[in-house]
């Protein structure tokens, strides 16, 4: 997908750096700060096997590189922290215990993003889903598993292969799928992602994780909905509507019949 040119945050990194150094000449420090705060920073966390993976970003294309990401428990104790990788991602081993977890990313210049990971979604450390490891051989989840919580950039070895170019081509493929949306979607999506695979294997793997997760989360809901669906009762409204029309027409007839009386009455 093309970057949105009207959003300052969508500047590619080198250009953003250049822009910042130009702005450094700017006399008003406050103005500079407000430029920097013209976009938010976000962190998102999701369970993946026995890990909780985080993604930190300004926009989905403009990730937080080398920001500090931390995981805290419900009482605010920091459990682990690390630096975000080239892709803004980092996976933590799921901690023991209960309660919500809070993930905070510090991206410099006062940029701070926070995400509450609900207690209900916490993975049980022992119960790694076999699906995840099977479907995502190159995912950040797997690769960083061994390196996690030790605190640093080794958490993202796989993602260095995920160059902006490859991300873009994966994005373009996704756009193509979207554009052909009215055609049968699932099949088309598979083909398009497959086509993008040589250019961006890890992006593709990430996509397959997303698909798996969506399926896992939405599947039961969809089934429940389908089961609970009521039978349609098409006749009722039409019958009542028909009666209404009949009543309306007979009312009209009555009125027409009484019109002579009416005008006669008025003359009196």
């Amino acid at each position, binding site marked *: *997908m093309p970057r949105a040119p009207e959003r300052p945050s969508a500047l590619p990194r080198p250009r953003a750096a250049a822009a910042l150094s130009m702005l450094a000449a700017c006399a008003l420090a406050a103005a500079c700060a407000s430029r920097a705060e013209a976009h938010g920073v976000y962190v998102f966390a999701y369970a993946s096997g026995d890990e909780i993976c985080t993604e930190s970003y300004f926009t989905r294309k403009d990730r937080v590189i080398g920001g500090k990401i931390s995981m805290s428990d419900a009482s605010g104790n920091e459990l682990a922290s690390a630096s975000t990788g080239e892709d803004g991602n980092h996976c933590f081993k799921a901690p023991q215990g209960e309660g919500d977890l809070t993930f905070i990313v510090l991206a410099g210049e006062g940029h701070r993003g926070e995400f509450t990971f609900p207690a209900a979604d916490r993975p049980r450390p022992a119960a790694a889903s076999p699906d995840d490891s099977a479907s995502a051989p190159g995912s950040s989840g797997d690769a960083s598993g061994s390196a996690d919580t030790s605190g640093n950039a080794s958490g993202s070895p796989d993602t260095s292969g995920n160059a902006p170019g490859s991300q873009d081509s994966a994005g373009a493929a996704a756009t193509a799928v979207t554009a052909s949306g009215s055609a049968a979607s699932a099949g088309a999506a598979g083909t398009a992602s497959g086509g993008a695979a040589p250019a961006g294997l890890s992006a593709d793997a990430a996509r397959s994780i997303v698909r798996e997760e969506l399926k896992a989360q939405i599947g039961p809901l969809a089934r429940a909905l389908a089961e609970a669906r009521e039978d349609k009762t098409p006749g009722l409204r039409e019958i009542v509507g028909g009666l209404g029309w009949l009543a309306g027409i007979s009312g009209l007839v009555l009125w027409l019949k009484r019109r002579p009386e009416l005008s006669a009455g008025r003359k009196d």
Partner: protein
Amino acid sequence: MKFPRKTFAAILPAAAVSLALSSLPAAAHFGMVIPSKPTVMDAADSRVDLDIRFWHPFENAGMNLEKPASFKIYSGGQAADATGDLKEAKPSGFTAWTCSWKAARPGLAAFVLEPKPYWEPAEDKFIVHYTKAYVDAFGDDEGWNEPLGLKTEIVPRIRPGALYAGNAFAGKVLLDGKPVAGGEVEVEWYPGPDKKGDAPYESMVTQTLLTDENGNFAFSPPVPGWWGFAALSDADYKLQQEGADKDVELGAVLWVYFHEFRPAAAAQ
């Protein structure tokens, strides 16, 4: 002019019944897809319920929406067919539909209703409203200005996930992927369940504007809430009604949420 009371009493119930059960041509017809929230930021509250209707929004007057031809959810570069997940609902006694969706990942989701052609005797034509709404999740709404490739659609030109009441919303109307110049766009407010708008004159229930030569339009709603934009075109095909060829009105409907602009709070 006075009606004798008896006559009036005879007409009134019949007229009321037939009026209530026939459609109200004064108000515009709108396909409706109303998400229970326009933005998802909280993982513990990431479920979105979609209210799917064919309705007169401003006056909150119902029509029946028979089981749609399709209901699709576009997210993560894919279109998922959720037609089978639709559940019938009976708001105010009319047939409508609901669907549930859970935001599992950051990203923009688009929800698209394609109804079966609706025969409107009062206008002597069929109506097909392709109806769309967006929900952005966890700070990511990239792709908001990209068409989905629908038969006809409104593509936002102002980010739809960040609008305050009084802001202009701007969009481009596409039919078969091409801009519609001089096309009519009808605008109505949906006051919410069990509420109706209070227009000074009936002629002000629906507001109307025209697209420019590039298919672009802009509109500034005066109050917060869901506002519907219905860009109307004539189809290049006819449909049969009782053996006769009838015109088909195509609608590209987009529902956009405008937030209340809150007074300033004390800075930290």
